[in-house]
């Protein structure tokens, strides 16, 4: 299991799954950092991504639009993507803007990893 912090984005790999940690405020700058980290992990051979929002208190619409871009990137690369550890407010926002139609949400990182493990044999959906 390797770990890197980049400039301000933490991430680590478990097998072919990368867990990327979003910061306390998701805006254009931090969104682009997450996108960069995800691209890096995919280029490095990861086949699944978990974005962990446990530190995220506030999200803005530009940050959300970048998350949609990350969903596109994951799709194009044939990679699975799960968002985990979101607070209620953020979930509401994602629902409001339709993100939840395109990405799986997991209660926490552990659940996300479990889902990804089982996904290798079957397709399943999880949610709150």
């Amino acid at each position, binding site marked *: 299991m390797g770990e890197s912090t980049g*400039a301000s984005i933490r991430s680590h790999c478990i097998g072919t799954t990368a867990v990327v940690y979003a910061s306390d405020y998701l*805006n254009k700058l931090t969104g682009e950092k997450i996108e960069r980290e995800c691209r890096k992990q995919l280029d490095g051979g990861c086949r699944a991504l978990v974005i962990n929002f446990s530190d995220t208190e506030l999200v*803005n619409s530009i940050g959300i639009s970048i998350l949609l871009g990350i969903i596109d990137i994951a799709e194009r690369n044939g990679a699975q993507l799960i968002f985990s550890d979101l607070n209620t407010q953020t979930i509401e926002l994602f629902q*409001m803007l339709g993100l939840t139609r395109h990405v799986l949400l997991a209660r926490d990182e552990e659940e996300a990893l479990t889902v990804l493990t089982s996904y290798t044999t079957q397709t399943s959906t999880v949610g709150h």
Partner: protein
Amino acid sequence: MRQGNSKQGRRILGRVTQEEFVGRTAELAQLVSHPAVAGEPRGLLVLLAPLAGVSELLRQTYDELFNRQGEIVPIYFQVERTYATAVSAAIEFLTTFVLQYIAYKRDAPSLCQTSLTLPDLVRLAPPSDHEWIAELVAAYNKERFSDDNKSLVRFCLSAPQRVPPRSGRPFVMIDGVELAAYLNTAVQLDSEMIKTFNRSHLPYALAGLRRQVLEAVHRAGTNFETVDMLRLDRLTEEQARQLIETAAHRQKVSLNEETRDLLAEQFEGSPLFITAFLQAARERNVSPTTYLACEQLYVDDLMGGHLNRHFNSLLEEIAAEPDVRRSLIRVLHESAIGGNRKTPFETWRRLLNAETPALQKVLAQLHMHELLNWDGISVEAGGGPAVWLDYLKMRFRLDVMNEPRATVVAQSIADALKRAPHTMAHHYRRTVNLKLRELLGRFNGQLVPEKLFHYGDFSASYKGADLEEIVRDLDVESQLLRLPQVFHTATCSSFVANIDQFGDKECCVAAHAFDGAIYTAANQVVWLVAELESKLEADRRLTETWLDRLTLFAIHSGFHRTRIWLIAKEGFSLEASELLKQRKAFGSSRQQFALLAERIGEFEPPSLPGKPDEFEIVLPMGDDNELLAASITEQIARRLDFQPEAINQIKTAIVEACINASEHSFSPDRKIYQRFRLESDKLVITISSRGVVPSNLQAQITEQGVKFGELDEASEERRGWGLKLIKTLMDEVEFERVDDGTSLRMTKYLRRTSS
């Protein structure tokens, strides 16, 4: 009577105090020091752009030199419209000269304001000067009865040469030289002045409209090497704003920042228009604190006030006959609204039904005032300041179309009001636009990382990376591009008139250059550079449109070898980047542009009274300051016992409102104004910013303010969600009507949980 230190700052001819005189500090210093420059005394030609204003500058120079009481004796003379002939003007000059000389020698400023005859002045002359002044007046009395007008004019103008060297050196400043063109006489006063003053071996300054002064210098056969020049353009935006503030203060007229900026733009930095407008405001007791009040007063003054009188007398001087004047108004107005503005002289003669010499005189005078260009063969009309064009339109409707005055007034106010936001929007855009021409001019064959011109490659390497990392990488980048040496830049609209319909004209630029600074035909290239308007990465369609547009422009303009460079704020989509590659064009984001600018030289990239329960906060835009706003909002919302969920909703709405304010407004002060009002059952938050109303909001705003529910929710764009979010998170959202920028009012009601 000498007054020691109290002489400093005495107002003698100046209409305003030294402190109130703004915007021409460097020019004032040059004028004051001109007569003291070592070596042979020289003439100074003060060349004015139309409406630039010079009289107060000369009067301030006079006051400064007068108060110094040194060797230099200042003399200020203004050619006036009331002088009928060159002879009467020259005699007036002689009297003014003697009067001001004696006032200076006696240090008696009040004398300058008197109207004395030459015999009176001889009696007032100080003993040390009495003899030569008496001789001068006696000689004049002899000369004035001769039949030789030219000789009399020269005699009067050469009077300063009679001052004995021990009595000081006169410095003559002539104002309004262009008015010499209207004198009904065979003697050309302007040329005679230049000839006489040049022979006098005394310093002098001659101020007037640049075309007229230069023409007079040519006519006088003057060697340009013997004169210095001082070019006066209209005030810069900053200077104009300063002038408006000081003049409004002096006239006791209330303004605010919004209307001050509007007036600075609308009057294009003309001191004459600005002071006329503020004078009208004082006379009519109007406070121009709204766009509406400004435009009503503007139209009033244009219809029958100072502005009206200014243009009326100008037109009467140019075309004395009412019939010719009416035809002239028609032709000038039609030229202003028409497309093809260059017309043969013969066409003008037919349109105005005028004799050739009379028309030549009319055209020469319009040319002098830069209201058109006439080269003796064809006439290029349609120019001039916007105020002049408004005046022409108004006169056309009244005099040619015979429309009722009330209709013209109403429509003119409506037009001016509709134009005001566009004027300001244009100003804001110009302020934040990339300074393309400035940057291109500094290319100068420098080597820069090629990645700065290929957004696709740049994005793949650096999107989301820290600036330090990008700069570090670029420093060691091996793929370099040699920039050309640019020798001429101009807006594309300078070549093809209608290209600026696609955006601000400064956003599309053509730069003529040589690759490698090698001056051969094979190396000659034209860079066509355009700044695209796009919130997101520019897509393929927009990119293709601009590539096609610039390619056609190059063909139309006869540019054989070109290089297209497009710049979009957020760069280009993958497909657009691919297209740029295919078409061998460059594409950069604003970040790449700023990085390039830093590399190639010094360049500056496009960087309320309250109530007890009201809070006001002003935050600068950027640097995640919306987080500060959210944090403050949280503290305020807690005072009303909002539930945590509601507080989070309000915070998110605030963040979105701040982002909206800073992203698209081209705000001049880069500030977000926030007002919080606590009521028993609700929190009302108003977020305002100055600048352009974003296009997605424009439809939302009507005179009453439109409820948010009318927002088009069908938009599938990934940006522009902010408003949708705000609407969902807050209970009431509406726009308040403001002249400049936007003001968004959001309300959240308190829902107490039952205990």
